[in-house]
């Protein structure tokens, strides 16, 4: 303890609160100038947020188109094991698999598809056995649940697809794939044509086409599951097809086995698209690198702007600095005040810039009908980096302010 410290009574010394109050008053003194000061940072931060945001949005857009074809389909089947060359199913899918799957978040449609071993089951339009007829390739017979068409992205071109009621009652109705309809000579379904599978007649209620995910359905006769079980001895469903939301693959992939086979999830084999692809990532990286470089340059300009204005402000306020020193401020307190002013100005610029950037990304996305994608952490980092820029920009002016001698400063006047 020095003699001075002992003699000088201590009250509330110049503390953090005083520092903030003084800095705030310094900043608030000239709102017009504040606007100009933060302009550079606002533009810099905003351009970084906009460029990164648009890059992410654009990459997301690419994802979406990419995903729309490939990444929204999923499938599940019973796991198999190879024993001595024979594939052996370890379990079975439940008949209510579509209902179970559709309860999961991210599953838009689900449907079962099974091929029926139609050995000896001739599909014909007339129940006449004509030994002289040339042998044609047999028409495959398949069974699906009512929702399978949606899960497979198919389209009804005539009539209708069967529904859950047909399925439950085991009605003898069929839907033909477009190729099968051609082959069987079914042109119109409104005349209620029938076909025969073996010796049983089935009413054709619709024709489907564009089943891109399972093109073998196009050449098949499609029965409701219930009908196939009753008439054709279908015992277990073979495959569950899913239509997923974009990006839901990993989530559904992790939940579906338990949903389908709670007691033994490992007995279900699920094929779902993975989250992101290398292609998407590289596209995103390319775009981000270019735009980030641009944003960085803008930020640099913003920082230089703050440094300039803060320095100007120091030079303008030489009298004030001298006065504060005369009133007992130490060099450190003077430096701290200008530092805090600069940091606060930078953070203000960062906040305004980040907000502006988010607004622009949202507006551009809305105008282009894109889904705006923006990492929120990125926005927080942008606002904070405004403060960091203020900190760096304030270093030199603060040192300058601290080095001002009160004697010379007080010669000028206000």
């Amino acid at each position, binding site marked *: 303890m020095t003699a001075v410290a002992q003699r000088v*009574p201590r*009250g*509330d010394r110049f503390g953090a609160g005083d520092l903030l109050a003084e800095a705030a008053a310094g900043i608030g*003194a000239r709102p017009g100038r504040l606007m100009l000061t933060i302009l550079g940072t606002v533009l810099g931060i905003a351009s970084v947020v906009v460029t990164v945001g648009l890059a992410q949005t654009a990459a997301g857009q690419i994802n979406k188109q990419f995903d729309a074809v490939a990444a929204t389909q999923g499938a599940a089947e019973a796991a198999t094991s190879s024993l001595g060359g024979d594939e052996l199913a370890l379990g079975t899918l439940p008949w209510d698999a579509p209902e179970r799957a559709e309860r999961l978040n991210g599953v838009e449609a689900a449907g079962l598809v099974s091929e029926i071993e139609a050995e000896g089951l001739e599909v014909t339009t007339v129940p006449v056995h004509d030994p002289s007829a040339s042998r044609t390739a047999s028409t495959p017979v398949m069974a699906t649940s009512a929702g399978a068409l949606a899960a497979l992205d198919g389209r009804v071109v005539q009539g209708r697809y069967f529904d859950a009621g047909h399925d439950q009652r085991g009605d003898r109705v069929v839907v033909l794939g477009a190729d099968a309809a051609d082959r069987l000579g079914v042109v119109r379904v409104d005349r209620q044509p029938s076909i025969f599978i073996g010796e049983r007649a089935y009413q054709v209620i619709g024709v489907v086409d564009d089943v891109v995910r399972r093109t073998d359905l196009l050449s098949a006769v499609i029965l409701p599951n219930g009908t196939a079980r009753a008439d054709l001895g279908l015992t277990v469903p073979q495959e569950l097809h899913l239509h997923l939301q974009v990006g839901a693959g990993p989530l559904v992939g992790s939940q579906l086995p338990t949903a389908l086979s709670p007691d033994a999830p490992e007995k279900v084999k699920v094929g779902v698209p993975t989250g992101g692809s290398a292609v998407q990532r590289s596209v995103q990286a390319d775009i981000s690198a270019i735009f980030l470089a641009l944003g960085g340059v803008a930020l640099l300009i913003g920082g230089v702007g703050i440094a300039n204005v803060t320095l100007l402000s120091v030079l303008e306020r030489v009298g004030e600095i001298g006065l504060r020193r005369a009133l007992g401020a130490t060099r450190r307190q003077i430096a701290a005040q200008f530092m805090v002013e600069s940091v606060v100005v930078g953070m203000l610029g960062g906040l305004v810039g980040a907000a502006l950037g988010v607004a622009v990304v949202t507006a551009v996305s809305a105008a282009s009908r894109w889904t705006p994608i923006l990492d929120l952490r990125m926005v927080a980092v942008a606002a904070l980096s405004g403060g960091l820029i203020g900190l760096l920009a304030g270093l030199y002016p603060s040192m300058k302010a601290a080095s001002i001698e009160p004697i010379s400063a007080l010669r000028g006047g206000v």
Partner: protein
Amino acid sequence: MTVLDLLGADDATDVVPPVVELRAAARQFPGDPPVNALHPADLQVCAGEYLSVVGPSGSGKSTLLNLLGLLDRPSSGEYLVDGIPTAQAGERERAAVRAQHIGFVFQAFHLLPHRTVLENVLLATIYSGVPRTERRDRAAEALDRVGLTHRLDFRPTVLSGGERQRTAVARAVVSQPRVLLADEPTGNLDSESSAAVLELFDELHADGLTLLVITHEDDVSARAQRRVRITDGHLRELA
């Protein structure tokens, strides 16, 4: 040599030390040739004194003021404020002494144009360690004392010169300094305002405040009970 050693030299007795005391303090500015702005000078100002330093421009008045106000250090000699030696003290200690023992009034007022009168006075309290809860009351009180209660929320830019200087006086006395240093306090004022400010100084002196006024105007220096003339860096007591 430590600060305590320096103190020990004359603090053995119960004698109240002078408020400010120059001991062979000199200030030389380097150059070719060096400028002796203040030759070794001795000066003691005791509590309650009203002293004026008078001299023409270029005589060393500003140098003396800067030394007395702890804005500059003597090249040689010692300067004590309230018995505290300051010539070799660190920056922080000198700042603390400046904040708590010395009040400044400048010719150019040095008020912050974007702050209200009250805020300008408050500024002095934050550096001098006035407890937060008392600051506003003390500032209002100081402004009441200089007769500016009706101007608390005005900005200095709309005040008259006399009012500005009274604001500056309020700022100087708000932290209850041991000595008020006034540098040409009437230099920017008309005669009426000058008279008001000098009247205020008389009142403060009557209240027991130690005043040290530096001026080149004889009628200003004549108000003081004790006068010192400075010529070419030499101090000389006037009868």
